[in-house]
């Protein structure tokens, strides 16, 4: 089937699937994504202060705010019905908003920027690949990727944005003379969903050719963050740090044995990848190898993180697809991972059949989730635990496969660097 259709056809099929599901499905989170940028598009710059003081909420970092405010401003200017709908989000509840007269068109507009972010990821990946067969694989795997379609176009999560910044940083890491653009991209990634910061030390090792260059890249990373956050601090005060108090990433540093073991494995994986990139393969890093590095770090970072948040897996999907395009054995591995992620993620009603709530909220939110269904048979917490163990084991297996690949013969006889 894959080879019967052209690349153009696969791309069009991908866009069609996304276009069909985008206006009919959503999760409540997408209201949150647009609720606060709407204040900014109305000229209220103290969005973080409003979020904290009036809603006890922490909005995403600055670049996310700016990008969605920009789109919100354009859509509000063009469509009065959209403006009325998004304006009402600050006062109405989820149930009432779902019955709004302009729900479908507004939800499609909400998701329109995602088409752009994904197109940018596609173009970036395209530039990283030279062979035609790998390009076709890449187009196919992107077009019908279940996780991208589910998490982005059915659910409405915006994680393609930070994923794009991380992916483009990977692209610039191997572009001589343009490494500073990768630093800026990572800074933008950090200012859209924080997690890309974990890749910065690794990025420096891969992209910087000298200490002087490393300092330059650090400055390119820090400067935009400092400038943007200084301005926002002057307007919002301490509220811009409220996110750090509330966010739920894998940063628990308690001294329990479980966390210590997880941190130990994570640090070891990170250390091995950095060591390999710097000492073993430094001058022979290709995009294939880079994708493996990013994936190994990502998998390690995910140990201990909630498996239920399906959208977190969007962060690494461009690298996984890139890897599977070059090396077909990774395609099956990716789909097994996605199967585990879906078994873990379809846990509440709003993320399962309830995604069709815009059509008939009462009906579609009534259907049990996968977790409810399994709950009739086994203890719900047992189900969660089993899935978490399977995920952690499989993520470990992926890291093992990557280590096995990168420590294979290809790099064994590379002479050590002179410095």
């Amino acid at each position, binding site marked *: 089937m894959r080879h019967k259709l052209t690349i153009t056809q696969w791309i069009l099929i991908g866009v069609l699937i996304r276009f069909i599901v985008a206006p009919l499905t959503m999760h409540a989170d997408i209201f949150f994504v647009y609720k606060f940028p709407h204040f900014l598009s109305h000229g209220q710059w103290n969005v973080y202060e409003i979020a904290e003081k009036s809603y006890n909420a922490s909005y995403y970092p600055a670049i996310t705010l700016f990008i969605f405010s920009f789109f919100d401003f354009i859509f509000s200017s063009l469509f009065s019905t959209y403006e009325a709908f998004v304006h009402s989000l600050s006062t109405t509840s989820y149930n009432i908003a779902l019955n709004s007269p302009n*729900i479908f068109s507004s939800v499609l507009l909400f998701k329109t920027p995602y088409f752009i972010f994904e197109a940018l990821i596609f173009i970036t990946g395209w530039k990283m690949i030279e062979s035609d067969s790998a390009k076709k694989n890449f187009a196919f795997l992107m077009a019908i990727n279940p996780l991208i379609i589910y998490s982005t176009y059915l659910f409405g999560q915006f994680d393609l944005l930070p994923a794009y910044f991380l992916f483009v940083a990977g692209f610039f890491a191997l572009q001589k003379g343009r490494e500073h653009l990768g630093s800026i991209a990572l800074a933008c990634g950090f200012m859209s969903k924080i997690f890309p910061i974990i890749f910065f030390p690794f990025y420096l090792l891969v992209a910087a050719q000298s200490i002087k260059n490393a300092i330059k890249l650090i400055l390119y990373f820090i400067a935009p963050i400092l400038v943007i956050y200084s301005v926002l601090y002057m307007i919002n005060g301490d509220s811009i740090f409220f996110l750090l108090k509330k966010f*739920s990433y894998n940063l628990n540093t308690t001294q329990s044995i479980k966390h210590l073991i997880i941190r130990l494995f994570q640090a070891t994986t990170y250390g091995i990848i950095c060591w390999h990139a710097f000492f073993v393969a430094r001058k022979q890093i290709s995009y294939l190898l880079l994708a493996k590095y990013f994936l190994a770090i990502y998998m390690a970072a995910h140990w201990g993180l909630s498996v239920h948040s399906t959208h977190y897996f969007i962060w690494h999907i461009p690298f996984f697809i890139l890897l599977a395009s070059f090396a077909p054995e990774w395609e099956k591995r990716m789909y*097994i991972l996605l199967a585990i992620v879906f078994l873990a993620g379809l846990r509440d009603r709003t993320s399962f059949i309830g995604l069709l709530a815009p059509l008939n909220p009462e009906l579609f939110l009534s259907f049990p989730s996968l977790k409810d269904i399994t709950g009739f*048979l*086994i203890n719900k917490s047992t189900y969660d635990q089993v899935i978490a163990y399977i995920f952690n084991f499989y993520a470990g297996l992926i890291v093992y496969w990557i280590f096995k690949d990168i420590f294979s013969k290809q790099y064994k006889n590379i002479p050590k660097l002179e410095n």
Partner: protein
Amino acid sequence: MQFLRFFLLQFFLLSAFILADSPKAVALDLNYIKEKTFFFKDIHSFRGKLFKSKAINKDYFIRQTFKPSCNQFNRLVIPFYFENPNKTNSLTFSLFEASNLEKILFTETIHPNSWGKPSKLGSFKLYGKFHYVWIPPIQNSKDQSFIFEIKSNDINSTTGIYLNRLKHQQVSSIQVNGQELPGVYTGVLSYCKTNFDLKEMTEIVLEKTKREKIFFTFYFLGIAFFLYAIKRAGKSLKKNSSS
């Protein structure tokens, strides 16, 4: 590949073991599923900055007035906090019509000391227990005011409810020992049982789509355009390869 087969085999064996080990597997009851599966959330007040009430005891009880927006109201989820070890033997939940506090619609005894350790509540950094209260569906509950009351006879109780100050259209300020506490609400969630009326369900979908008929005209035109483009992209390839 062999390893993968081994991994999948282990997965299925583990699943089979969990199923066989579960007492629920034999207690699967179709009536239970029918009665307690198909419901939807109506009130969601577990939000904003949540804080703890005083422990509910002999001298402190809470009443919450709320108004479902749907018929067949059948479930409440009450967020409790409690200390570990839990010293509360029992709480009494009672449901009334707001207009008639004499007539109890439903009552049940809750046993907090059987809850085990407090667990994380949703995505909040709060710990306790979401307690589910299943109520026989109340047919004409839409826009009717109800009151639920949580009481205890314990003196040294260590269990209370999470509260907030975020106004909700369907929830009124709580009463503590019969006195209203303005601007304070419980973080309660309420649900109604689904009425599977095929005609009504279809009408809702049709009405919603009709309201946006211009949008849906463009939507279907867009789908037709993509289908045409996909077909054409295939044809142009055949043409190029034959020439």
